[in-house]
């Protein structure tokens, strides 16, 4: 810090730049609450996620140590910043950490107030007001920005939880958000997302490598893509196919993209645009290619009969869900695809989905906290990618993650306690699909890919056919491989 003092009268930032080695390496001392490297609180959710009663107790104990005092004052006074400040004053060294933890507590309290045994919408409202004072979607620490989106999501639940109308509001929320965003906003955010994190590439490349391995000796390949988005996944597959050394050279690739109604990112128009782009790209690298689209029903149900099949082609079903830039897809729609796939006898099914924590019986609050944990890991990982560019990250958060958070919470709220979200990989196994091993090359590729980003990422092989991408101790994304029960392996 001496250097900082010397430079005190120079430009502000120089004093910060000189601090390069004093990273607060916090270790996991506390059993229940640890701090990750970036100073965000990471609560040990496992120890909290058992029963609801524990949540009650925890909240009450937190309320006792002063939070309650705050909340009470909120009800009576307009500004209680004095009390907050005095509380904070005692915690100067852990100022940031304390603030982060307080936000977590408040969020949990709000969630509990919204849905707990002692439901109180009024209390929830009060807590959310307080939260809104403390958070901002554009400023501050990861926790503060994250809490902003969770607060907003909870607010939406609070206001919308009035029956059918609320349901409509909730499900259309994320969409509404998304359409608001200027297209270039989304592109910029997408580009940034790809540069600061490996999520997209991990999903795409793991699937592509598996596809390549599955079709080594085939001349014709047909891929049915559930959610093609911009089609970027296929650029690298085409490159690999066009230059493959073993097997018949330059096999013909056919892609059928599923399109949906409306005007969103998978409307017919957008899909056609994507198709044109892919055709142009394929031509540029000399890859024989054709593009089709297949319209989903109005309720987004997939009908296998709508897909044109050609004899002798190797069929692959590609199902990317939950990548950070993806829109939400209703479970029924996904189920219709996967069960429909079974009748089509695909050579390979590639599935990428989010990896969520164990579904205890914590009800809404438990799932809420798990979601908070999940997204705080994502935020931290993005920060590791672009540590100084909080505004760039704020853009990605605003365009992609915020809507995902809102949608995710809405779904949890709607299905409180229900075992709705069983991972699709489990579903596939239950329905009869057979696992396909992740190859050494695939695993190796994933490790190399992560190495390009940050040491905090890790890849695990949870099962023979499943690769998990995680940030620090939190598993985030799962890529799994399957084949039709009737295919001869």
């Amino acid at each position, binding site marked *: 810090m001496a250097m900082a003092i010397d430079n005190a009268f120079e*430009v*502000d*930032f120089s004093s*910060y*730049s*000189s*601090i*390069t080695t*004093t*990273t*607060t390496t916090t270790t996991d001392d506390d059993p229940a609450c640890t701090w990750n490297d970036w*100073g965000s609180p990471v609560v040990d959710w496992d120890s909290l996620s058992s029963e609801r009663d524990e949540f009650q107790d925890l909240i009450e104990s937190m309320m006792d140590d002063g939070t309650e005092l705050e909340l009470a004052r909120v009800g009576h006074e307009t500004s209680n910043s004095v009390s907050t400040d005095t509380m904070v004053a005692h915690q100067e060294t852990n100022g940031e950490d304390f603030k982060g933890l307080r936000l977590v507590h408040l969020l949990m309290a709000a969630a509990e107030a919204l849905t707990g045994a002692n439901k109180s919408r009024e209390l929830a409202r009060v807590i959310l007001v307080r939260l809104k004072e403390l958070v*901002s979607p*554009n*400023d501050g*620490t990861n926790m503060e920005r994250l809490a902003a989106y969770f607060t907003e999501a909870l607010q939406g639940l609070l206001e919308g939880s009035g029956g059918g109308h609320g349901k409509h509001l909730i499900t259309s929320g994320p969409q509404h958000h998304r359409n608001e965003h*200027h*297209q*270039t*906003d989304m*592109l*910029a955010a997408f*580009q*940034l997302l*790809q*540069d600061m994190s490996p999520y997209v*590439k991990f999903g*795409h*490349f793991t699937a592509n490598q598996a596809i390549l391995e599955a079709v080594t000796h085939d001349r014709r390949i047909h891929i049915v893509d559930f959610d093609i988005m*911009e*089609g*970027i996944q296929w*650029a*690298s597959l085409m*490159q*690999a196919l066009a*230059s493959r050394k073993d097997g018949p050279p330059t096999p013909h690739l056919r892609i059928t993209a599923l399109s949906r109604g409306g005007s969103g990112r998978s409307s017919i128009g957008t899909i056609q645009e994507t198709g044109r782009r892919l055709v*142009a*790209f394929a031509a540029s690298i000399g890859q024989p290619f054709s593009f089709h689209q297949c319209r989903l029903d109005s309720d987004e149900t997939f009908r296998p009969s709508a897909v044109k099949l050609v004899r002798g082609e190797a069929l692959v079903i590609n199902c990317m869900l939950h990548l950070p830039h993806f829109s939400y897809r209703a479970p029924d729609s996904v189920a219709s695809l996967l069960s429909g796939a079974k009748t089509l006898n695909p050579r390979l099914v590639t599935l990428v989905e989010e990896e969520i924590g164990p579904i205890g019986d914590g009800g809404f609050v438990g799932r809420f906290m798990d979601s908070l944990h999940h997204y705080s890991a994502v935020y931290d990982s993005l*920060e*590791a*990618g*672009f*540590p*100084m*560019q*909080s*505004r*760039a990250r*704020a*853009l990605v958060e605003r365009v992609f993650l915020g809507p995902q958070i809102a949608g995710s919470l809405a779904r949890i709220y709607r299905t409180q306690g229900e075992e709705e979200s069983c991972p699709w990989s489990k579903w596939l196994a239950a329905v009869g699909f057979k696992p396909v091993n992740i190859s050494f*090359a695939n695993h*190796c*590729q994933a490790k190399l*890919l992560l*190495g*390009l*980003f*940050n*040491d905090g990422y890790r890849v695990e092989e949870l099962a023979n056919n499943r690769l998990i991408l995680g940030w620090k101790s939190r598993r985030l994304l799962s890529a799994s491989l399957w084949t039709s029960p009737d295919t001869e392996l």
Partner: protein
Amino acid sequence: MFQPKKPSTMNSHDRSMCVQGDSGLVLTTDPKPRLRWTVELHERFVDAVTQLGGPDKATPKTIMRVMGVKGLTLYHLKSHLQKFRLGKQPHKEFNDHSIKEASALDLQRNAASSSGMMARSMNEMQMEVQRRLHEQLEVQRHLQLRIEAQGKYMQSILEKACQTLAGENLAAGGYKGIGNQDMGAMKDFGPLNFPPFQDLNIYGGDQLDLQHNMDRPSLDGFMPNNDNICLGKKRPSPYGGSGKSPLMWSDELRLQDLGTAPSCLGPQDDPFKTDIAPPSIDINTDLDSISEIYEAKPVLSSDGMGEKKFEASPKLERPPSRRAAVQTERMNPMINSGSVAQGRNSPFG
């Protein structure tokens, strides 16, 4: 400085440093300089000995004359000749440098002959390891190509969006200048995809000269329209202030929810912003978020990374982030507010 264990044996565990003299002799730098019998030197020695009729016929004096190597003394030759006469096994005489130079295969052969079975499985293991390494290299190479392909594709998307945007802006009228500059911003994101694969060491060197590599395929291959107005000039150092401050002006045109005010470009004397070509992406986005990527560089460069990189590659971010992230991130809002206070009228400072 380590003392050599046995002055007479120059074995591979010797730790003293070596310097190479003018004559090409490799001498150690410990108190008693000893001569390192490198492969070349030994070969010359053997040649000389052979010329003179064999180790028994040759004498240190004659060898010295025949070899004609400056700095070689009788003392050196005497001891070496003695060993040569005794062992006649050149490999033993070599020090660690020579061993490195001697083919690994020779060593393996020696080992194999002496410990048969074990060596064979060692060989197998070695082959297995080599096979894995080879496969890893293959994967690495493929990964690089795939990332490139994705980048190229992304490029086409951005270009298309550029054009659309330019069209829109021109139509909107009065924003002509902005249209181009927005395209510039979009284009600028092209290379953002590529830096990561540099770390795959495809360019071979141990020390990746990142700057140098940045000029190569990433810009050439994937920015076909280098003279496109979008790019401005091809920049070896994108920070070479073309002073694209006008890019920031587009801020004025749309108030965005982030509320960044127009005058953010005002302070060209802002230490962050000098010499940075701010690639604003879009009039609606918070340009600052993007320019921040490049803002950060001056701050980080002080820790010796020296990367005045335009493209904020994830890898390039890494080392600084590991060290400084906690502190810098916490301070980041303050840094922002610092610069904000200087020039912008941002509501959140």
